[in-house]
């Protein structure tokens, strides 16, 4: 559902960061914003509460520049992870071209990851979308913390389709660009 605009020669792709509350979605975007060249990034829009919890979404446009005459952009969105914001999550998923699922590796958050993953599948179904047909990347975040679930266990539970996955410490930027790059490339494949 990428918007290819043949008259102004633009291509816009939408990538959504999904995952449970406090797993580090906004942190991923903040890191990307802080490291990409200024000409590449647009304004980052964050609709957040005073406690820095995402209220509606974060939005960060990234611009690849002119590729074969097409101005090509990736629009990154995060959903609010808190359970009661499902209407926003559903809305943001609409027209998605690629999904990054950010899982919180902490043992205490295992259930929250599974719940959020199921919630994502439900919301996709409501839009007549099927995860098997959407470019998808898994990120196991917060690997720096002491009590984390082994990656094999996370893989078994959250990634039965064996999508590409990355271990990450978004707070320090580890794994953030690896995740983004693979997500963008998978989306491009669907266009080409």
């Amino acid at each position, binding site marked *: *559902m*990428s*918007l*290819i*605009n*043949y*008259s*102004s020669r633009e*291509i*816009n792709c*939408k990538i959504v960061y999904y995952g449970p509350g406090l797993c580090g979605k906004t942190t991923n975007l903040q890191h*990307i914003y802080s*490291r*990409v*060249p200024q000409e*590449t990034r647009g*304004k980052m*829009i*964050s*609709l*957040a509460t005073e406690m820095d919890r995402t209220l509606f979404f974060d939005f960060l446009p*990234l611009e*690849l*520049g002119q*590729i*074969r005459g*097409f101005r*090509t952009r990736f*629009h990154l*969105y995060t959903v609010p992870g808190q359970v009661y914001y499902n209407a926003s999550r559903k809305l*943001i998923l*609409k*027209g*998605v071209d690629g999904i990054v699922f950010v899982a919180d590796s902490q043992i205490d958050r295992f259930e929250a990851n599974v719940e959020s993953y199921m919630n994502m599948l439900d919301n996709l179904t409501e839009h007549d979308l099927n995860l098997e047909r959407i470019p998808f990347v898994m990120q196991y975040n917060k690997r720096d913390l002491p009590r984390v679930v082994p990656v094999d266990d996370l893989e078994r539970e959250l990634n039965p389709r064996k999508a590409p996955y990355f271990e990450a410490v978004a707070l320090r*930027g580890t794994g953030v*660009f690896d995740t*983004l*790059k693979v997500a*963008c*490339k998978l989306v*491009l*494949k669907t*266009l*080409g």
Partner: protein
Amino acid sequence: MVKGNWALFEEDFWAINTILQSLIQTSSSKSVMLIDKTGQLISSIGEPPGFDVTQGTNESMYLSLIANRVILVVLFDRKTSLGLVRLKARRGGEELLSVLNKLFDKLQYKNEEISAATLGAEFTAEAESEIDSLFKE
């Protein structure tokens, strides 16, 4: 309804921009945007939306849904009033509706042709190398 990619043709693009331009002027708003319901920006006029829409700004936003798939966004401040913005946005919305309906008809017809025109392997290769050079530490 048209599924998949959607494309704007130059004539529609100008028709839409003319309507937005007139809306922003007659309502004294700061910026006007047309966004696909999926969040894709179709066109924007006026001050670039510098909206960190957090608390404490004096900007207001007026939203209306057109043809059930496009959102008209008007950003305005105290230089104008909600009443005026609403009035002008309604009028603009009606004009947009007629342009969009024509566009959707055309798309329905042309969509197959458009999706057949793939971007090609060179595009993908070039875009990938751009990703590698821009998205890094």
